[in-house]
């Protein structure tokens, strides 16, 4: 695995720019315009309108992550790319795009703030709790969030490639089990107040660190699944 191979893999992904570049922004633009039109026509002026609709770009990044495996992986392997290089090259591309896209989201947030929510008090790029802060924290959190979603998508794609639908069901069931076990354990230990306190006092930077740690775990899980994936 060397840099030139990773760069080739990234270029391979971008041969068709639709998935990585055009669609994420086209979807976000459409999503934004719909929200803007609704808020402008329905809300009383100056009452802040919070929407969580900018999640669309994060969700779509997850879809692209999954597509990078079950649509593009087979041809890449036929062209003599190792699984490891393909995984690393694709993840690096996603991280690179997340840096740029995160900055773009931060810039849009700055504009939103400066224009009083696009003139209609719309809070589209400012999200309570998650993306409330200064532009550099928005950049950092968006970058980590996009990376996290892409890496998770890749893992979903890998599980599907390797174990098909039953595997995917088990994969999601395992996550649900983990979540339920966490909830039960927290209830038994009467830890809910402490957990609530932890999250309410957690800074945006702290939250970002948590998401980054989760992304690292997902990246490792995907890598382990990747090593024996077949096409």
């Amino acid at each position, binding site marked *: 695995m060397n840099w030139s191979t990773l760069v080739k893999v990234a270029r391979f*992904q971008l041969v*068709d720019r*639709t998935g990585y570049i055009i669609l994420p922004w086209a979807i976000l633009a459409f999503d934004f315009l719909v929200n803007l039109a609704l808020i402008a026509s329905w809300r009383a002026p100056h009452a802040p309108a919070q929407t969580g609709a900018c999640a669309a770009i994060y969700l779509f990044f997850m879809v692209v992550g999954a597509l990078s495996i079950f649509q593009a992986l*087979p041809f890449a392997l036929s062209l*003599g790319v*190792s699984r*490891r290089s393909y995984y690393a090259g694709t993840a690096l591309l996603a991280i690179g795009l997340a840096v740029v896209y995160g900055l773009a989201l931060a810039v849009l947030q700055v504009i939103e703030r400066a224009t009083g929510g696009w003139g209609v008090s719309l809070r589209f790029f400012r999200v309570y709790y998650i993306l409330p802060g200064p532009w550099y924290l928005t950049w950092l959190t968006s970058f980590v969030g996009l990376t996290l979603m892409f890496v998770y998508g890749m893992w979903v794609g890998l599980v599907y490639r390797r174990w098909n639908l039953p595997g995917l069901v088990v994969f999601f069931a395992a996550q649900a089990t983990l979540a339920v076990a966490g909830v039960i354990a927290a209830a038994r230990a009467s830890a809910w107040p402490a957990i609530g306190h932890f999250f309410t006092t957690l800074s945006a930077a702290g939250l970002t660190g948590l998401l980054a740690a989760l992304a690292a775990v997902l990246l490792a899980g995907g890598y382990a699944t990747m090593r024996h994936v*077949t*096409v």
Partner: protein
Amino acid sequence: MTPAISVAGLTRRYRGQLALDQVSFDIEPGSITGLLGRNGAGKTTLLRIIAGQEFPSAGSLTVLGAAPTTDDHLLSRMVFIREDQLYPQYGGRFTARHTLRAASWFYPNWDADLAFALAADFGLPLNRRVMRLSRGMRSALGIVVGLAARADVTLFDEPYAGLDPVARQMFYDRLLADYAEHPRTVLLSTHLIDEAAGLLERVLVIDRGTIILDAAADDVRGAATSVSGTVIAVQEFTAGRTVWDRRRVGSQESAVVAGALDDTDRARATALHLHLEPLSLQQVVVHTASATAVSQPGMHTPERTSA
């Protein structure tokens, strides 16, 4: 010399079904080998394992002296063209031209001129989306990638599904021409044995996961002869020989005799008014495969009888 492909005891199990059973062979660099066998015999599984796309349950495998799954440098010296290739789709326009461009980055010996010349010969619409190409055109695209990659190890799995006979002949001609100038190791699986026969230097016949014949193509061609004439004459001629198959219509009989015939045999056949016809590669393969399918005692593969 290190074999281009070396396989030993290769076994692949899928949920109790044995797709490959103890497959062993070496392929020397600079040869064209045909991988022949019936549907479901294990050809694609074997090629996918050699290409590093699938993993064996047991056994060992080296390509150009190394394992073909992790080494990028080694992998860039190998190309695998499969019939059911899936191409990237992100909802956009991944065209035939995109395919060639992407392939050119990964192969150090990629010949762009050859790629475009071949594409023009096949009438490949380069600006059309790969998923909109007809089956034949998609096969042509695979062939162009496989030949222009000039990879040391070139694996073709039924590369010409949907291609018309003219285009298939073009594939054979261009493969031979390019092979002559840039020798490499080609392993080609096919059903169209007689068509590809002129190309093949060696044949591997696989049946239900086992290699049942591994021989030089020229040896296989002379390995059996069809003898036909009156029942009495045929009976007399074939007495004491290994006979693969007998067919009788009225007083006429036709038998397939294993092993090479010498001049004495031919003279005898002429005296008995027998008609002799050497079996083609395809006929030998069919007999070999059906012989093991029936697995009657006394039925031998040509490999054993001619040894």
